[in-house]
């Protein structure tokens, strides 16, 4: 299992335009729809990446895929685990939405989803995109997918 040499999403906050495109690309990538308009139109999106602002600065926050993830250690149902690539993933079939992971994530990166379970960034490895859609669509390289 890769942990120390895995690629993660990193933030270059000085380049973030605050355009929120990453949020829309994330929501679309995880919608299961093939058409972006159909996926997002008139919907309140629940992306796994969220743009925050601090004065003039913007930055995008998504799961850090921590080396020692407290979410996995705290999960009461065994729904959270680390896959072979090192990504922290959630088995929505096992999750019962107790939100203990929400209670412990230091970065606020696990959220309740519509279906009474939780959702989180899985680096788009389990949807059809195959690489982080947020990074792919970022117009200013304010988020990157690399090894550090």
């Amino acid at each position, binding site marked *: 299992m890769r942990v*120390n040499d895995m690629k*993660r999403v*990193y*933030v*270059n*906050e000085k380049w973030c335009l605050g355009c929120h495109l990453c949020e829309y690309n994330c929501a679309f990538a995880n919608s299961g729809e093939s058409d972006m308009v159909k996926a997002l139109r008139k919907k309140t999106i629940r992306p796994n990446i969220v743009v*925050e*602002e*601090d004065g003039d*600065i913007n*930055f995008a*926050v998504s799961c*850090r895929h*921590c*080396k020692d993830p*407290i979410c996995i*250690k*705290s999960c*009461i*149902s*065994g729904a959270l685990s680390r896959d072979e690539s090192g990504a922290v993933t959630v088995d929505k*079939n*096992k999750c*019962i*939405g*107790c*939100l*203990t*992971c*929400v*209670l*412990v*994530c*230091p*970065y*606020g990166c*696990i*959220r*309740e989803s519509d279906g*009474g379970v939780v959702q989180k960034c899985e680096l788009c490895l389990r949807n059809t995109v195959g690489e982080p859609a947020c990074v792919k669509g970022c117009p200013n390289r304010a988020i990157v997918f690399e090894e*550090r």
Partner: protein
Amino acid sequence: MKNYVIIGNGAAAVGAIEGIRSVDSEGRITVISAENHHVYSRPLISYLLEGRTDEKRMLYRPEDFYEKNRAEVLFGEKAAKLDPKAKKVTLESGRALSYDSLCVATGSTPFVPPIDGLESVKNRHSFMTLDDAEALERDLDPEASVLIIGAGLIGLKCAEGILSRCKKITVCDLAPRVLSSILDGDCAALMQAHLEGLGIEFLLGDTVEKFSGKTAVMKSGKEVSFDVLVTAVGVRANVSLVKDAGGEVGRGILADSKMKTSLDDVYAAGDCAEITDMTSGEKKVMAIMPLAYIGGHCAGVNMAGGDESLENALPMNSIGFAGLHCMTAGSYVGECFEEKTERGIKRLYTKDNLLKGFIIIGDVDRAGIYTSLIRNKTPLDSLDFEILKKSPSLAPFGKAYRLEKLGGEV
């Protein structure tokens, strides 16, 4: 090759197995499991009755877990005696197991107070284990009235789980409020109102004085008729093995930050252990699943010769009923910042420049940011707490923090 024995087969045992294996891939691991089940998540038994999970999905680890970790499980076996000098555990079946390092993860047992006539109640249940849940399920029917003694976490989750499967649920508790171990008056009232809205009836500050057939006579004089009784008054840590062997126990088996007990090469973790609550400095039994796993993992690493400490254990709970979530953490001491929200309330408790605890009902999004402030003992003057207390986010932590956490591996 080291010989590891783990007594118990719950979250703490899983933590111990994974902790041992993170250091030692060779040693022999033997697990003594009183229950005849692959490790499952006990708090999920209410969801099982509610139909939101099933026996397969509620497994805490995949079916090949023991095999992959090369742990031998002795199902249906109970430890009877611990001899720390000979480093030997004797089972009730008579078999004896030698160990180099032992983890006691025996959990707790429901405590049933003596009540006049209790023994004569036929459909009487505890609500701790999968077997308990299945036995309760057999007694449920759409016409059944259920009386639950105990308005704590177990009693209320039980009520939620069986709500649609019986006619009426009454919950009584000697305490004047629901969830009395984690909520104060106002917050408890909010949860109670929500639960009443779901159709659960409460008799609080009242207790059963005696049972007469299918009728409970309350201390207040009220009479409650029922078909099924669930006792969820509380639990007691299973300490006797260690106590009888001369180990130090309080309300639980005393363990230090390495999860070691007072006996050589004997560790304890989970609901049977008593460890320090970082927010109060007091030794406590904190019977919550995350700590069972984390404590077990810590014990396992140390048993195998590694070095792990658990210095930031704190009580915390995330509990929801039909969409209304409630999160609590730490100690409710010091100054209180309160904010009422649409569906609930937020209370943050600060003392000595630290966040010590919180209660959040309703909007629990990103609450873990608060928990991390407690766990990391972050000085509140090192960030913009005025903004943070209103909305949990990373902006108030400042640029250096963000650079470290969002720009590098954590």
